[in-house]
């Protein structure tokens, strides 16, 4: 048929890699950045990240970006600029968020620089403007209240944004069905499948003390795992416990730079490849992962803990008040979970006691004596 009417009816296959959405969660904890200011100031870091964003946008025509600030009192979008819930002036949001997501129509004039690609300039000005706003909103009482940042909320925001963008990109179940029906009916016509979006989250973290957000962060990690969204971690400062698990569980990159001053190099080398490219690369995250969890009772990171059999809460000690789980209130006796103290001296009438045998047993230890706590 192609030869008859001279038309090319082959199915259009796009050989380009699928568009990639990069959601950057920027930890803007003022405490930590003030602490870091001697080695790596926030402005320098922001400039580095802007260059990195430009590199990401440049590496694919349809690539998108979202930047979320995880501040000390709130988590908010830096880019795209969050729109207040009011009737939109322009109808027909076409999902082209990367290009015109900033509502520059509000009258804010973007400086036209002939030497700067306009798309880059848009992202840049939006991020700076929103960050300035965030900084102005922050007052001392916010800082005094907490030493850390709301990372859990920020990851949730990133996940919801990714989820929304993915839906805008991928054909829904209904449209897929109609499309396949149409394809069946008219199989000669080429139809263009919408290419799914590959997304990833990059967390630039400077705060420690994230164990108190153990539950929301863990939930986000599991959500990301389900959606196959890798979470990359760039840990400029602070302790590593929770976020390392996030990258490990989702197959992301974990980096704790020895020299934060080389930030751009880290960003470009380790974090620029998207999920499609990573399939053929060796990911630069090495070293053992700290899989320890934080206990629910004292927020301590525990080696060996006790888990409620009903609600899976983690406790660091076996002495619970009234033998009730602190979270769900169900009966939880942990006495039977304790391992017997070893008796190593034969035939002594006196019972030997040894304290602290329930400490971590590395290697292939499988305490056979421990069993699920049972209700008597």
């Amino acid at each position, binding site marked *: 048929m192609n030869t008859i009417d001279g038309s090319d009816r082959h199915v259009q296959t796009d050989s380009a890699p699928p568009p990639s959405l990069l959601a950057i969660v920027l930890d803007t904890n003022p405490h930590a950045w003030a602490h870091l200011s001697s080695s790596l100031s926030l402005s320098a870091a922001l400039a580095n990240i802007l*260059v990195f964003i430009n590199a990401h946008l440049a590496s694919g025509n349809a690539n998108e970006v979202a930047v979320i600030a995880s501040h000390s009192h709130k988590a908010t979008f830096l880019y795209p600029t969050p729109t207040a819930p009011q009737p939109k002036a322009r109808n027909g949001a076409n999902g082209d968020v990367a290009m015109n997501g900033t509502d520059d129509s509000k009258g804010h004039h973007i400086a036209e620089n002939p030497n700067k690609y306009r798309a880059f300039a848009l992202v840049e000005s939006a991020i700076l403007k929103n960050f300035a706003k965030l900084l102005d909103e922050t007052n*001392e009482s916010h800082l005094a209240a907490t030493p850390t940042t709301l990372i859990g909320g920020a990851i949730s925001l990133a996940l919801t944004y990714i989820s929304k963008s993915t839906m805008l990109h991928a054909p829904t179940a209904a449209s897929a069905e109609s499309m396949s029906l149409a394809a069946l009916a008219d199989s000669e016509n080429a139809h263009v499948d919408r290419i799914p979006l590959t997304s990833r989250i990059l967390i630039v973290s400077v705060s420690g003390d994230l164990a108190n957000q*153990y539950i929301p962060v863990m939930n986000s990690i599991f959500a990301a795992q389900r959606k196959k969204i890798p979470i990359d971690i760039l840990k400029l400062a602070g302790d590593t416990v929770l976020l390392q698990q996030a990258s490990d569980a989702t197959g992301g990159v974990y980096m704790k730079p020895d020299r934060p001053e080389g930030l751009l190099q880290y960003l470009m080398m380790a974090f620029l490849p998207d999920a499609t490219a990573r399939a053929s690369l*060796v990911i630069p995250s090495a070293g053992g992962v700290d899989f320890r969890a934080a206990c629910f009772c004292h*927020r301590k990171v525990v080696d060996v803990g006790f888990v409620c059999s009903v609600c899976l809460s983690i406790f660091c000690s076996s002495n619970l008040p009234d033998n009730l789980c602190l979270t769900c209130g169900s009966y939880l006796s942990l006495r039977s979970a304790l391992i017997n103290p070893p008796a190593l001296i034969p035939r002594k009438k006196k019972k030997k006691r040894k304290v602290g045998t329930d400490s971590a*047993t590395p290697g292939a230890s499988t305490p056979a004596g421990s069993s699920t706590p049972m209700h008597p």
Partner: protein
Amino acid sequence: MSTAAASYRKQDGTVSVSADGKAVSWTSSSGAIPPLSIIIADIGNLQQTPATAAKASIKIVVPDSAPQPGSYTLQFTSSAARDDQQTITGLLRKWIEASKTQAAPTAAPTGTNGDGASAAIALAQTVAVAAKGSDDSYDDAKLLSDLELQMSLLNTNPSLRQRFDRALAEKPDTVSLGQFSNQFWTTRVHMLRSHVTEKTQATGTYNVLSVIKSKTVNGALTLSLTKEQIELLFRQHPIVQKAYNENVPQLNETDFWERFFHSRLMKKLKGERIREQDVLDPKLDKYLQYDEAIENSDQFIDSLPLFINIEGNEQNHSQKQGNRPDFTMTPSNYDKAPILRVLNRMSEKMLKDVPYSDGDRHAPVGVDEQTYKELQLRDLQRADDDNRVVLRVQDQSRFFSAGQSVQSSTSAATYTKRTPSQALAILHRDFEAISANQSKAAGVDLQTTLGINDDSSSDEENATSKIRKVGGKSSRSAATVQIVSAIKKRHLHDDDYSSSKAMPTSEQAKKLAISEAALDNLTITHNTTIEFLHYFWAVFHSGDSDRANEVAKLIETLDKSLDRIKAVADVAEADRSIQLDRYRKEVESYNQRSGKKRKFDPQNIKGGARAVNQVVEPLLRAINAARNQYAEALQEQMSQVSVGKGL
């Protein structure tokens, strides 16, 4: 069911013999004593007071071998006590005799048609016994004591056998064979269980006609039929048996089968279409008109309750096609697709022969009361009680936010150097630097902000400022080094991971540059050592001072494991030194021949003890952890003992 007023332990109540004769029970009228229930089959002796005595009572003796031994004396209290006694003893005698003649186990489940309290008790008991009986074969303790089963599992699983034998050979002498095998199997109960299940599975019947195929041998068509096949054929197709019975005396048996396999009957049974040119057979063709309905009359489908008969409900969809059955089952379509119908019928027949896995074979057919109640969709009914387990999750932030302040954490301590206002001021000042540019027409000049200056050399940089510059050359190269080293490390790990999955031993050995024999040796040593580590921790944490000697012996065994690993490493090292010698000679001869200088680098020869130790490193760590903890605990206890003696 027969009841009578009787007292037991001076408490008034009623004695009753259940209708099915399985149990005799007594319930207190005041409820002071828990009800009593004795399984009749367990009764060893029954005594009654003579007819002349003032009191009418019976004594039931249950021997010690029964689940609930003891003797129970019941005294009849009604006005017609003597008569009651006669009836009850008569009944009991009858049932005891019946249960004794019946060689069947006592655990046989009873019918469910009983009513009243005693029947309920009897039912509960028998059900419990029956449930126990069916679970028994999967019980841990039973599996562990079943030597025959373990042997058969070892025989079917060579690698397990190897592991077992090896571990057995190396076990310390103090550990008895029984202890050892018990330990070995406790960690593998799941394997035993699956083996039992595997063994109890049997192949069911199959469609015989499709299996029997003629073969051409020496140009002649021959057909081989086994006895079992014929038997199965008769069972699956009674019509063939009928034909056989009626024709075989007259016909030769071989002739009969020959004719049958060419006949239209055979085609019909197979579900093939009968064509005009098919040979007619006056003897067998009359069976073509057999009545399928008779054959189908005992379909087990009838016993399905209608409301869970999905297929039936589907067909009974009034909006769709009324009560019309599926098209393969409607008479008009019989001849269009006979094969479908025949296959359907064959499947049904075969399924009918398979015993239910989830029910008792001898139980009455159909849905009993209990099942019916179970099947009722109670939870969908309006008046149903809510029996969900309510999980009351308390506010978790209570735990976390409590007491959280700037001072509470580790990194927060470093923040306290600045007051919040100072921190904020630093940030504001810093940010102004970048946003100041923005107000100009050019936007942020990223190049200057980044501070990357390719013209500057790192020496220069160090000279100008002691502070490491952001984006400076040294910072960037340090970052590169870190990432590249991480990539290299990861690369190594990834390879390890993939190799353990699919790569054969020879390839793995080549990669490690150690001989295959050495690697095999290492693998076996690893396996047995893990076995002993399991054993060690089990005994160590048992807290049983009687087993203290065992622990000591196991530590010795682990020491021996270390020796074994060292032996393998020595062999590998010896191999390597041979290779090293060869390589040195090669280099020397090359240098002599060509006159060029080639450097001899011993690093070029990989493998040896280092490779071995690298592989077993986690194992060594595990052994050492065990040894250290043992030594630590031992020392502590020793000191306690000496203190105790000193006092």
